[in-house]
């Protein structure tokens, strides 16, 4: 098994600017048209869980706001964003919505802020049209800063986006069937590189990882992860230690965004719209709970999982609202569930370790 050591994120970004003249944009979670940004020579760098201690953000945000929002703001108020040429705020939830306005209207970080509103479920004909209009509008706004969108470039990057999705689908598929010989830590460390790598670097990285990791998985008990993001990674390491294989995931930062079915559309605007409207059920687009449950069950069946772990970020309303129904639905099918309510970057406590160990014992 090959270890994948990525360059330091900052060094990589500086090099991207220096060598290719790329504009570096900080992008907040979760749904945005990254192919459009790539086509405009913008490298999106997602801001989910910067490894910072929370201090200054508390002057701006209440303690009952989720850590992803607080860490994102901490990143800005600690002046860690100096490398960035702008920010993009997708409309993900109430807290990120207001964070965007705090940054743009009150803190004024001296960098342009862009916004992206994606239509919410239930989808109708109007939703499709609006999504395309939003893409065009974003392109026009970005164009003022970085130059006009080149349609041919957009087509090429829409295809690259499809290539990324294709490798991701294969990685997930092999993992689900126990044919990917990679630890949980390695798997997520690799796929989370997609949060900042340019597709020209990301595709070979994923392909190499795929080729090097093909192989029969040692006999391990599969589980499904659902929630927001796999942080702290110490939990993944603990699962590895306990011989638990993540068979599939329904994590917002991972599977929900990467496991998009291929699009046949030639027009890149249409292709992006098609992918958006066919992404897996997700809280950020208001998918009905029954669709989320069906999706989870199909993941359980597809990977022969023995249980489901809800990996929840504290105070995350969208996830917390769906959780009781999902747990009830899974329990009705005899599937054990575990809820872990954690802060990104927190240490693995003894209590949490014991709970995970007890859950694993139950699966056995």
């Amino acid at each position, binding site marked *: 098994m090959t270890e994948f050591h990525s360059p330091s994120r900052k060094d990589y970004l500086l090099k991207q600017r220096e060598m290719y003249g790329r504009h570096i944009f900080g992008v907040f979670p979760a749904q945005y048209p990254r192919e459009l940004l790539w086509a405009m020579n913008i490298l999106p760098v997602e801001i989910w869980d910067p490894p910072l201690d929370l201090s200054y953000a508390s002057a701006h945000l209440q303690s009952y706001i989720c850590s992803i929002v607080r860490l994102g703001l901490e990143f800005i108020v600690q002046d860690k964003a100096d490398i960035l040429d702008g920010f993009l705020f997708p409309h993900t939830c109430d807290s990120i919505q*207001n964070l965007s306005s705090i940054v*743009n209207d*009150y803190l004024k970080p001296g960098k342009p802020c862009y916004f992206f509103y994606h239509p919410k479920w239930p989808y*109708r004909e*109007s*939703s499709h049209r*609006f999504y395309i209009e939003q893409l065009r509008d974003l392109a026009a706004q970005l164009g003022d800063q970085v130059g006009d969108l080149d349609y041919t470039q957009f087509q090429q990057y829409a295809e690259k986006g499809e290539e990324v999705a294709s490798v991701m689908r294969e990685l997930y598929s092999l993992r689900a069937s126990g044919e990917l010989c990679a630890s949980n830590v390695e798997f997520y460390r690799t796929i989370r590189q997609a949060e900042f790598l340019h597709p020209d670097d990301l595709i070979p990285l994923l392909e190499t990882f795929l080729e090097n990791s093909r192989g029969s998985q040692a006999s391990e008990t599969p589980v499904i992860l659902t929630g927001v993001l796999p942080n702290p990674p110490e939990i993944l390491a603990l699962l590895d230690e306990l011989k638990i294989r993540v068979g599939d995931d329904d994590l917002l930062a991972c599977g929900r965004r990467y496991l998009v079915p291929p699009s046949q559309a030639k027009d890149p605007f249409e292709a992006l719209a098609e992918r958006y409207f066919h992404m897996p059920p997700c809280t950020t687009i208001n998918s009905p709970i029954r669709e989320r449950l069906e999706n989870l069950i199909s993941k359980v069946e597809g990977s022969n999982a023995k249980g489901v772990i809800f990996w929840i970020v504290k105070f995350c309303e969208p996830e917390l609202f769906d959780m009781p129904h999902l747990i009830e639905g899974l329990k009705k099918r005899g599937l054990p569930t575990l809820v872990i309510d954690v802060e990104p970057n927190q240490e693995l406590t003894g209590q949490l370790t014991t709970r995970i160990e007890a859950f694993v014992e139950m699966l056995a």
Partner: protein
Amino acid sequence: MKDMGVPGIMRFSRMGKKRRPRKKNASLGPPLECNSRLRELMATHYLLSRYAQGAKPVAWVTSGAPVEILRPFGFYTFYPENHGALCGAQKMGPELCAEAEEHGYHQDLCSYARIDLGHYFSGKTPVGRLPKPDLLFASNNICQTVVYWYKALAEYWKIPLILFDTPYNFREISKADISYMVRQLEEMIPLLEQISKRRFRYKRFREIVGIAKEASLTWGEVLSTMKARPSPMTIFDAFTHLAPIVSLRGLPAALEHYRALLAELEKRVAQGVGAIKNERWRLMWDNIAIWYKMRDFANLFAERGMNFVTATYTNAWTETIGYLDETKPFESMAKAYSLVILNNNLDHRLQLMERLIQEFQVDGLVIHSARSCKPYSVGQYDLKRLITERLEIPTVVIEADITDSRAYSEEQAMVRLEAFFETLEG
């Protein structure tokens, strides 16, 4: 609304219940005569709702949803947020929230939602019984939370949920946003026809839009009477009298109520009758009320000669209603409903608050940081800082919740308020 003999029913329901008469606070002015009118109106609304089931299609609606489009189809509309406020005022919040928590709903979730889900699981409510809905109608112009909450209800009741998706105004509203919302309204009509089994009547719809506009404008006039010194009512009165514009918007009953209230307030202004006896300072309230502390706060502030004369919350049901236009009902509704305070960026909120502070001659600002309401609360710390810097008025933030009193610390709130009082009284 038809007179169902509600005063009689109310008197009957009170028989046998021994209530200790409340001691009137000497700092308060005479109570509003329209209070009893309001009680009757809302009691009628809740009473009729019990009999609506089966007789009319019933819709549960979020407070910011464009209800006017439901009315031509004859829907009886019920507002869970209004019911949540009522439960909060009657101090039933923790009990109902706990019911939802027992079913897995986390204590960090919106307490209006937990009250409503708690009612679903337990059937408990201070109004006897709530009508089972045939339709859930939500708009995310006030928060995304209502959609998560209504999705859960849709799953439990196995009924349709219609969403009016209002793009958040990060900057100015765009033509694309308006077209998207207009198209959504048009797309809803066949669905509503199917659910209600009634045809859409465009003429009636326009009339309803007209009634809603007039009621909201009259509500605006009601609030404007608080510009007078002394103010003829307090914001605590306004929080209570908000119920018809939320729950009965588009019905003549709401308009009639506000006309009566306006007439009473104008009379009080002409006679110099204040809501509190010695109005020395005028305050502004930000965010939803702390429903279980309404009476305590009304007394506390009145005793210090402080009167709340404006609030961003009460203003929300009149601020954008001027956009409503019977001749262009769809387009005007799109604007009126998507430009509301919580669907607008924080720069807009700051400007609005500055304007209200000036127009109502406000001396101090009390900000309720409501654990339940993220879109209202995220950004308040910066709002406080900016308003203090720009307008040089004392401000205070109270950490609390709208209905769940377990998230409120009296001691902590009083320490902050005492410091605020000292600064104000300087």
